[in-house]
């Protein structure tokens, strides 16, 4: 391709820039990991991605002072106790463009780092879109961990939802098993409990039916083509997986499953109770090593919970549209985000107080919590400066906690690279490769 002299020059510039950034990183990242040696290898690293909607509150969220001396802002107050285990990131941006409004891309491109397919779902603005074009980082890490016997767990990952609306569209899905394959979070704690600890009814008959049906599916596939055939093939693959799971004996549990309060209606008025139940399940799952990856999705993009328990009568999304000058709305938004922070603090506290089975390390020591959002700021719908907070045992992940760090418009894909690398999964790019230039963000 000699006809692009400038292109080559740019390519060169780009590459050298990437080299310049990544060279020290590679060294510093591998340094302590190597030094830690066996000790780190035995650690059961876990990651939790937490989503809360509608952007944050500029004044209430962002600290003013960079570095270790950052001040705890009103939104972060509930997490103050864990200040030293927390890293607040500014300047990390979702640079994905293309189809879908910002709420859709903010959601669907967040964990995936890649565009949405063109589609027919129309948002409040922009062009219509479909599902994301690629796998999400939580699933990427899960697949990596499941691929090795020493890190394989019963489920690999569990997708928790809190009052997620019962619609499948780009606003309600952020975790993807692959292109066009959104994963539905489970918002019902009783259902999650059943999934995690339940026995499957009539397993014997189901198993026999599945075996018999193989021929029916094979015959069906012969009569159809292309996409249609793909659909039936996917179906068959899921059935095969179910069959496989029957054969695997359930590991015996190290700790008893949590007892959930009975009869809590699964609707938005019960959000606080449901959140506690889901978090209790999540922590227990980690204790029993059922999974190493978890997502926790509070409502959905454009989430409109009405937090009556905080004395707020308007829906969250509606409030997020009010201008920054509207003091009352800003106060309410701070309250809402503070409530979310409280829930995260509950999770952090539980992880901190729970010892890993057969070790004196707490779960928190080897867990990384990543709290994000589909937008930077509610009323402008910007995808820049996503409010990102990392909490957990930084040492295990090669991340220096206890800081407020500012970057300049770096694509968030690079943050996902950092996290993948901290699990030992040394991928060069994730999502749209164009947004991975510079490699993993250096969070040392």
């Amino acid at each position, binding site marked *: *391709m000699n006809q*692009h002299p*400038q*292109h080559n020059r740019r390519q060169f*510039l*780009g590459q050298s820039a990437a080299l310049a950034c990544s060279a020290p990183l590679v060294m510093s990242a591998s340094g302590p990991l190597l030094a830690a040696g066996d000790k780190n290898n035995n650690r059961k690293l876990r990651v939790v991605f937490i989503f809360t909607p509608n952007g944050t509150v500029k004044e209430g969220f962002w600290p003013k002072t960079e570095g270790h001396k950052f001040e705890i802002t009103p939104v972060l107050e509930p997490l103050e106790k864990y200040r030293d285990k927390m890293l607040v990131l500014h300047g990390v941006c979702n640079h994905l*463009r*293309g189809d879908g409004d*910002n709420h859709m891309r903010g959601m669907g491109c967040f964990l995936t780092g890649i565009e949405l397919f*063109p*589609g027919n779902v*129309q948002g*409040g*603005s*922009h*062009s*219509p*879109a479909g599902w994301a074009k690629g796998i999400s980082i939580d699933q990427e890490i899960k697949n990596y961990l499941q691929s090795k016997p020493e890190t394989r767990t019963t489920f690999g990952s569990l997708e928790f939802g809190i009052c997620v609306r019962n*619609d*499948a*569209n*780009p606003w*309600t899905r952020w975790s993807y098993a692959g292109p*066009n*394959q959104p994963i*539905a979070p489970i918002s019902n704690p009783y*259902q999650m409990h059943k999934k995690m600890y339940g026995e499957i009814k*009539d397993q014997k*008959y*189901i198993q*026999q*039916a599945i075996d*018999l049906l193989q021929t*029916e*599916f094979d015959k*069906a596939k012969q*009569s*159809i083509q292309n996409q249609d055939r793909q*659909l039936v093939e*996917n*179906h068959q693959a*899921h059935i095969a997986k*179910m069959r496989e799971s029957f054969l695997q004996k359930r590991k015996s549990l190290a700790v008893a499953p949590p007892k959930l309060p009975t009869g809590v*209606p699964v609707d938005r008025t019960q959000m606080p109770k449901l959140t506690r139940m889901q978090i209790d399940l999540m922590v227990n799952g980690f204790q029993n090593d059922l999974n190493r990856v978890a997502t926790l999705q509070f409502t959905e993009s454009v989430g*409109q919970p*009405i937090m009556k328990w905080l004395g707020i*009568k*308007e*829906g969250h999304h*509606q409030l997020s*549209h009010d*201008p920054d*000058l509207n003091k009352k709305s800003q106060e309410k938004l701070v309250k809402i985000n503070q409530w979310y922070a409280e829930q995260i603090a509950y999770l952090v506290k539980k992880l901190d107080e729970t010892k890993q089975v057969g070790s004196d390390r707490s779960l928190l020591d080897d867990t990384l919590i990543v709290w994000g959002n589909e937008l930077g700021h509610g*009323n*402008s*719908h910007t*995808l*820049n400066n996503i409010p990102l907070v990392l909490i957990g045992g930084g040492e295990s992940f090669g991340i220096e906690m206890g800081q407020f760090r500012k970057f300049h418009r770096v694509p968030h894909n690079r943050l996902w690279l950092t996290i993948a690398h901290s699990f030992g999964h040394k991928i060069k790019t994730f999502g749209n490769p*164009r947004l991975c*230039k510079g490699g993993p963000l250096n969070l040392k």
Partner: protein
Amino acid sequence: MRLLNRRFQPVFWVLGLATVVVVSANFPTETSQLENSDSNRISPVSRAIIHSDATGKQIYEKQCASCHGKDGQGVADHYDEPLVGELSLEKLTKLVAETMPEDDPDACVGKDAEKVSRYIYDQFYSRAAQKKRAVPKKRLARLTQQQFINSVADLVATFQWRITTKDFYKQEKRGLKATYYHSRHFRGNKRIKTRVEQNVDVDFGDQLPDVIPKPKPPKKKSRNLEYDPTKEFSVQWVGGIAAEKTGEYEFIVRSKNGFRLFVNDYTKPVIDQWVTSTGNEYRTKVYLLGGRVYPFKVDFFRFRDPTSGISVSWKPPHQTEHVIPQSVLYPEWTGHIGIVHAAFPPDDSSSGYNRGTSVSAQWDEAVTAAATEVSDWCIRHLRINRIKKGKITEKQNAQMKSFCIRFVETAFGRKLNKAERQFYVEQFFDPKYQPIERIKLVVILTLKSPHFLYPELPTEKTTENQRTIVAKRLALYFWDSIPDQQLIDASRAGHLENADASRPHFERLLNDYRTRQKIDSFFEYWLNLGEVEETTKDEKTYPDFKVETAIDLRQSINHFVDDIFWSDDSDYRKLFSADYMYANASLAKFYSLDSTPFNDSKNADRFVKTKADKNKFGLVTHPYLLTGLAYHKNSSPIHRGVFIARSLLGRKLKQPPDDVEPLTEEFNPKMTTRERVEHQTKATACMSCHGVINSLGFSLENFDAVGRFRKTEKQKEINAVSNYETIDGNQIRFDGPEGLAKFIANNPHAQKSFLRHLFQHLAKQPVEAYGHNALDQIHAKFVASRFNMKTAVIEIAKYAAFHDIQLNRPAKPKSETRKQK
């Protein structure tokens, strides 16, 4: 890197000068998008070399392709959206001449702009061009969540007697059968009377019910606590309850006495308060499928309580709580409806409507769980659990086998051939299987079979199979369920293919109560009715607007569309011309409607047709939509305009630039909403879409954020005059809502948009997959039927059901041929 690129662009342009033509000609567009796009940039200098005799194509490739892509598909980092839209050719030309290329708008003007615009318009920009380029295909689909649940319910229902909704509507009797007993138990010898009552809402005070003759007071005070004829009695209300919509129904019972409430099962109460406690109000939620009648029963008794009374209310989806009215109650026993409880993940709605075109582990698990649930029901129903091991009689065995064959055949909607009978049923009638195991295996195998889950799985193309497919399709279009025997028989006999013979069959399909649920959800989808419970408004500006107001409005709009759709002429245009609104007393007050109907106490809690002032034009001015499409405090011409443009007029709109914060009142407190919007969108680039959006939205500026009529805003008179440019490039002046409503009612694009939505909702496939002129043909019939929406449903169903069906027309019966001779 992005920033860096921008800064250095001029340098690259000069460098790229000589190569640029080669680049755009040689590069495959796909790869040039990502990696090489920046180098495609054309320098301003190069544009000078374009000759005046260049064709539109040449101009496009030289001046436009670097940012818009070779086929207008867009280029990452520059303009990454496809170049499609709805400006008229004239407008497009003007836009190109004035604003393009972005960095040097003078480089393409006059004749060049005309030529290039024509090229863009014909090649990919216009609707016709887009149609030519992308033809969506029909996809094989599995049953959606709703279709699965409905199908199973109707499958189970074929095996037991029950009140069908047809019976429900044919007969006029309403209410519940109330049986009074003069004892606290329902003892036959103490039964006093059975009569039909309106509903369950009664206060007996400290008395006995009037039907029980006054007992003589006992001569001396009985010490026997067992029986006190002066106080003790019980009542049983029994019958059916009809649910119109699918969703969660909350049942609320208020009583201080002992009671049990049964919904959809006469044997298992959903609330059991037989033992009284201190409470007074009990609630529970039950998921019901629309268009079906469910068993309903209330047991009630008084023993020594000082007073007695009971009232049973419900809160159906999107309605406020109210005492269950007589109109939904039926005073006869009816059978249980098998609603499975398995937790299905929501269906893929990424095409804008729910489709079964994807599968997930969770879905497979839900199907499996549902199958085991149904197998349990069958075992109970056939009382197989009572058969002792090894003690099955020949007769029982034969009954069980015939049940199983019928079960599979009903599920698949067709007769099984010999091999299938062996595979699905007979192989399990081997002595090595216990009776329970047989049922379990047959049911699980059937409900997990691709023949049940994919109703359109291709079969051998015999006439009978093809006709089965037609019946199955129609059942899905109208009911989201499996076909009943009547439909299968009609199809097999070829009655559906004949215009005259098919009429009563289609009428039956349409008038089935389940179709009401389908139509109801269509309007919810087309008009984006959403979750009404979440609407709140600024308390200072609208102190009387409560959450209940929003729920009432939702009911009002439902009554309105139901009323027009189910009327005889079912005229689509009336949706936009009706000068009345459905209101209850509180809505009438809030919106200053004619209050005379509410002077009649009978109407106190009902929704009645209420004359509105002269500013009501059906949907366009319905306060539910206007309220939803508005901010907390102010109206929003942009939301309203976008809704009308997209949902009603079927126009496509482009992206606005990123990160636009809407200007709020604080920007300039003296400006009206219209002035603010005009100020923010005045740039030419904005106006390519906002020209359309604003002109539609502004015509509704007489309606505030709760849809009330107003003449002024900020002490200024409302200006609702606007000029709208149609898809065909005509200018229309709207002076308020009247002109807009008339325009929508009569505009063919709007009508087609309605039909497209209807088609997708019924068939769950894109209409374009049925041929490039499918929509035009359906529209022509719509016009011929004087815009009858019910007829449109039938025509769409026919069109889609017979698509790609090849029938070997059977030879005419011999007798007829003979006659002709």
